[in-house]
């Protein structure tokens, strides 16, 4: 008991194994990742979402045709499902369809032409476009490989104007997913700033912001949207409408996030390690950026992930009702507008496919968000 380090324990028990050493120096994000990857479903959904975002980046590459091109003669062609094997061998093809006008209803009726198969190639040449808006190219992921201009490929069929639904879906995905992202990004900015002010400073600003949040949350959202979107001038260009819709969605959507951030700030203000930083002489800025924000960052990401599908649904519903984006803009909601009446649904059920895509995307976001939320705080014990 006489040596100066008498109080030090022999650290035998910490002579750690390699695995323990790995855990010891694992940062917060590593621990979050370790916990997240235990959720198999969430992991699968993450891959799915990565796929969606690839489409967002380069929809032209995934599209097989010009999404705007109309051809009244090609209306209501049913989906031509992609087949993987051709005569026992790996080879993509789609069945050809042939149209015949029904003499009584005067309607085109499409039949699968058993005699012909359209070979489908990958990285085929087609419509020229600019990859990421930069690189001039005409390669597409899929396309008819026969070289015969008459062979057209409608993977998901066509709508009443003969536009290729697959290609439109690719572009719709870009719009809808982007609106979701940007709207959430806006609400994060608003939510974090206002929630942060509210939580960190308290007092009068807190009082005002909290009342504002309560006011916004008590407003019935649908009428407000209707009013706001109806107020948008009819002659705005699609990009302007797009931007306005995003803004409207985020202006109404930041409140949940602000509450969350405020709650975190309030809780963190009481944490001992924040007081310790204060006593060490850290500036306010440093306390917020080094101690408080990193602590709830993972929670904010989880909450935002859960907010994106809400935004997507909001946009889809608005556009479906004809109040959001309007043609010629393409979004999931606009696509679903095509399937608005019973007649189309009965005659051309493939026009409902965008609805399926919305469901898949929303589910995937929710599952990933849940997984993130579970993994967000690796220190609970």
């Amino acid at each position: 008991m006489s040596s100066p380090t008498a109080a030090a324990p022999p650290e035998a028990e910490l002579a750690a194994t390699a695995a323990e050493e790995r855990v010891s120096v694992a940062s917060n994000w590593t621990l979050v990742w370790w916990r997240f990857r235990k959720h198999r479903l969430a992991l699968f959904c993450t891959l799915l979402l990565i796929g969606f975002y690839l489409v967002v980046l380069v929809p032209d590459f995934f599209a097989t045709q010009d999404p705007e091109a109309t051809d009244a003669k090609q209306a209501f062609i049913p989906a031509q499902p992609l087949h993987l094997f051709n005569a026992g061998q790996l080879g993509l093809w789609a069945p050809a369809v042939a149209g015949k006008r029904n003499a009584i209803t005067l309607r085109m009726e499409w039949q699968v032409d058993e005699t012909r198969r359209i070979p489908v190639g990958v990285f085929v040449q087609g419509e020229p476009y600019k990859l990421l808006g930069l690189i001039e190219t005409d390669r597409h992921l899929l396309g008819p490989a026969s070289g015969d201009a008459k062979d057209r490929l409608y993977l998901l069929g066509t709508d009443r104007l003969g536009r290729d639904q697959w290609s439109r879906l690719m572009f719709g995905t870009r719009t809808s997913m982007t609106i979701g992202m940007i709207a959430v990004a806006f609400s994060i900015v608003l939510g974090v700033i206002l929630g942060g002010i509210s939580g960190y400073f308290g007092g009068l600003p807190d009082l005002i912001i909290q009342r504002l949040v309560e006011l916004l949350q008590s407003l019935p959202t649908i009428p407000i949207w209707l009013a706001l979107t109806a107020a948008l001038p009819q002659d705005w260009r699609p990009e302007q409408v797009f931007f306005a819709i995003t803004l409207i969605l985020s202006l109404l959507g930041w409140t949940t996030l602000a509450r969350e951030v405020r709650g975190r700030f309030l809780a963190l203000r009481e944490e001992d390690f924040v007081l310790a930083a204060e006593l060490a002489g850290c500036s306010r800025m440093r306390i917020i950026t080094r101690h408080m924000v990193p602590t709830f960052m993972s929670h904010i990401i989880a909450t935002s992930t859960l907010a994106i599908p809400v935004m997507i649904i909001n946009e889809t519903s608005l556009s479906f009702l004809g109040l959001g984006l309007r043609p010629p803009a393409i979004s999931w909601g606009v696509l679903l507008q095509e399937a608005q009446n019973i007649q189309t649904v009965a005659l051309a059920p493939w026009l409902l496919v965008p609805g399926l895509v919305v469901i898949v995307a929303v589910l995937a976001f929710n599952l990933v968000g849940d997984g993130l939320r579970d993994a967000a705080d690796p220190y609970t014990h």
Partner: protein
Amino acid sequence: MNAPAPLLSVRNLKVQFALDEGVVRAVEGVSFDVYPGKVFGIVGESGCGKSVAMKAVLRLIEAPGRIVAGEILWRRKPQGGPGSTQEEVVDVTRLDPNGSVMRGLRGAEMALIPQEPMAAFSPVHTIGDQIVEAIRLHQAVSPREGRRLAVELFKSVGMPMPEQRLDAYSWQLSGGLRQRAIIAMALSCNPRLLIADEPTTAVDVTTQAQVLRLLRQLQQERDAAIIFITHDLGVIAQVAHDVLVMYLGLVMEQGPVNAIFHAPKHPYTQALLRSIPTVQSTPREPLPTISGSIPHPFNRPRGCPFHPRCPQSMPGRCDAATPELQAVGPDQSVSCFLYQTAEAKA
């Protein structure tokens, strides 16, 4: 000495939790006997398995936890109607945890004073409602009679203004009064065994003194057995007749309170007693310490669980095998190789 039969007899109890990260061996072979009219103290540091062992006795272990071995023998109240004295011994580990027999035992014959005082009562019902409900669960009485019994109970635990307090909610009571209410609840069916899991850890010394006095008095009045769990050696010295010292799910030493405190045999007990500062110890002298810290439950040392921290550890022996619990005195037993050699030589 014509020893009475034990009320509760635990033999080689093992409880494990199978988690994703590995298996937590919370209780690794614990044996002890509890006699009627005695306070049986269990001491041990955080995480040594005290609560888990008690939950096993009450069959309250929930998945992923499981009793993997051992017997818990309980002497039941005479079952054959009034006048019957035939006492039956049941092995609690063989009962269905949610079956009628176990539900009959739990609460009526053995009752728990839980570690978290806030968890004992629901915050949305009055305390009175909950106590009356507990009484009526095991006794066929009218609500009116139930309430009368509840008032009696409150009086017996020294609750001031018992009538009013029955209509209060648990969060309206102070720490000391809440503790009394919890004890009253546990006593509601006149159990033969009261398991008090750290009943005073969350309260101040003055409240602790009140609770300890109450428990001591109840135990004398009712001749019940009490298992008293704590990590405070001062408390255990003052309330227990017999003491069990646990470390990492194993019994280190067991014996009458005087033997444990005045003639401790196990190096862990000795070191623990030396290392606590008391009002009697010499001020500002460095305290003898136990080196290191309690290992993580996934990382149990091989052999004697205490050997990495033990000043008398014998390499090649203590780290190779786990010592058995062995008698070293009339009622005292120790699990340590130091004493097994002595035995072998003698």
